[in-house]
């Protein structure tokens, strides 16, 4: 039997690079938010908010997901990653594109720099998709694989529309309102890419981490079909008719899919044999609460939009923040400490397991720092979102200060894991 293990040096370098750059982007994001605090309660179509959104969605969340998928997919499918060179090229193009895009959004220069940035980003994402599709070509009829592949398809579609929108800034060739396409772009990214991928991957990992007896697989199929059906309906209906009364129905279909996933996760929690909930799983619980809060805001946005009330823009910013800084960030802040320590542990200790006393993966990072990170993150959530609702700048500033410290603690703990050295023999 092959016991060469999960540790493949080429894969290790690739995955670690994604985790590290993502953590650095998170720190950059926190600094950007700190300096843009005054604009966070305004309209979402603001240069600094566009820069922040792309930094959060691409630099912070997507990069770490790329790394996690590169690590997880070959294990699920029992195969090798299709091409490491292509994956590295994808990362380089993606990063160059991201820097150009964020810079040109922040200063709002919708010229050549932004166009080059969007093109590079799209190329990077396309190459990522290529690596994933070719790795998964040996179909194992696995529902988690379906979630990942579909999510990547939505990501490519999101990036393509984003690139078109960048060129539309300068040449205005689209026949309809730019903001209409922005809504489609945002929801293809949020529901198609993030939601599809997170529901798929978490449904594999959460029951494993909790040692859950009950896994209602049927609910996962419902999740998959309802989210996709709702999203396709939303995209086509909104493209032709704009936001309208049917948008509630589209939202209802997607939310039904999310409810199926929540029922699946709740069954896993209820039937868990491992009773203790550790800090990474607590972060996951907070993420689920914030996703639910975002879902509650969704019909409010449609309601105000249909009344042409400017409150719609305020609630849209709140909705986006709940999903990006809330749901996705909390999930990543927790799950990073479930996945990365194991990846590093496999490099240093897998071959020693059973031969000598070795630490567990959970002992590779500073638990106290993670505890402080969690407390500060909860403080951020309370202060920041209350501040947004009440339009209170002092509360927002308190929240953003906590967020800044969260990002620094997270980065420091990630560095502790990556640069972990096994104790030398005396």
């Amino acid at each position, binding site marked *: 039997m092959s016991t060469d293990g999960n540790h493949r040096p080429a894969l290790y370098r690739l995955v670690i690079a994604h985790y590290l750059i993502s953590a650095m982007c998170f720190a950059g994001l926190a600094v950007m938010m700190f300096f843009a605090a005054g604009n966070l309660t305004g309209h979402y179509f603001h240069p600094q908010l566009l820069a922040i959104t792309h930094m959060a969605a691409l630099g912070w969340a997507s990069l770490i997901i790329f790394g996690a998928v590169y690590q997880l997919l070959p*294990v699920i499918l029992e195969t090798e990653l299709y091409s490491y060179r292509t994956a590295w090229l994808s990362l380089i193009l993606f990063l160059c594109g991201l820097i150009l895009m964020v810079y040109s959004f922040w200063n709002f220069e919708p010229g050549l720099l932004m166009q080059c940035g969007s093109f590079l980003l799209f190329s990077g994402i396309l190459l990522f998709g290529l690596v994933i599709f070719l790795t998964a070509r040996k179909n194992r009829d696995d529902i988690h694989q379906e979630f990942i592949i579909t999510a990547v398809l939505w990501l490519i579609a999101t990036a393509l529309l984003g690139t078109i929108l960048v060129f539309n800034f300068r040449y205005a060739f689209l026949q309809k309102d730019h903001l209409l396409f922005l809504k489609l772009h945002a929801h293809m990214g949020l529901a198609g890419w993030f939601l599809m991928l997170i529901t798929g991957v978490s449904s594999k990992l959460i029951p*494993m981490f909790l040692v859950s007896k009950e896994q209602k697989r049927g609910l996962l199929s419902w999740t998959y079909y309802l989210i996709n059906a709702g999203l396709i309906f939303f995209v086509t209906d909104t493209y032709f008719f704009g936001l309208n009364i049917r948008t509630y129905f589209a939202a209802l279909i997607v939310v039904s899919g999310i409810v199926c996933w929540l029922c699946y996760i709740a069954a896993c929690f209820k039937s868990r*044999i491992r009773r203790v909930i550790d800090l990474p799983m607590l972060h996951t619980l907070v993420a689920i609460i914030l996703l639910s809060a975002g879902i509650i805001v969704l019909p409010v946005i449609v309601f105000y939009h249909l009344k042409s009330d400017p409150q719609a823009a305020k609630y849209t910013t709140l909705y986006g923040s709940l999903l990006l800084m809330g749901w996705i960030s909390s999930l990543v802040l927790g799950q990073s400490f479930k996945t990365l320590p194991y990846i590093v542990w496999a490099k240093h200790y897998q*071959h020693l*397991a059973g031969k000598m006393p070795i630490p567990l993966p959970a002992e590779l990072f500073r638990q106290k720092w993670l505890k402080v990170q969690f407390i500060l993150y909860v403080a951020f959530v309370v202060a920041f979102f209350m501040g947004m609702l009440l339009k209170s700048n002092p509360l927002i500033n308190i929240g953003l200060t906590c967020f800044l410290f969260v990002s620094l603690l997270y980065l420091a703990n990630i560095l502790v894991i990556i640069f972990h050295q096994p104790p030398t023999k005396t």
Partner: protein
Amino acid sequence: MTSYTPENIILRRNAVTALRFAMDPELGINIVDMGLIYGLETNEASKSIVVTMSLSSRGCPMGAAISGSAENVLIYGFPDYKVKIDLIWEPAWSYEFISARGRDELS
């Protein structure tokens, strides 16, 4: 197939004890109490130990670490023996396989 000679019975008992040092790195409990060991054939005459085991799920991210750990403890504990690990998926591992001690440790 294990023959029930006194030597084989002792070897088998020692192999099980050794396997208790192989841990699931995420859960921190040993693979015997996890119920991952399906079969153990020991042969003192031919100096061989064959473990038939499974994982909690196919495509388990910890899979290589767990099966590698089982192999390591046996090679380390029985350097003069041939050790073989056979990974099988039928019957699929179930939570009912966890021993009472394993459940206590997890809770």
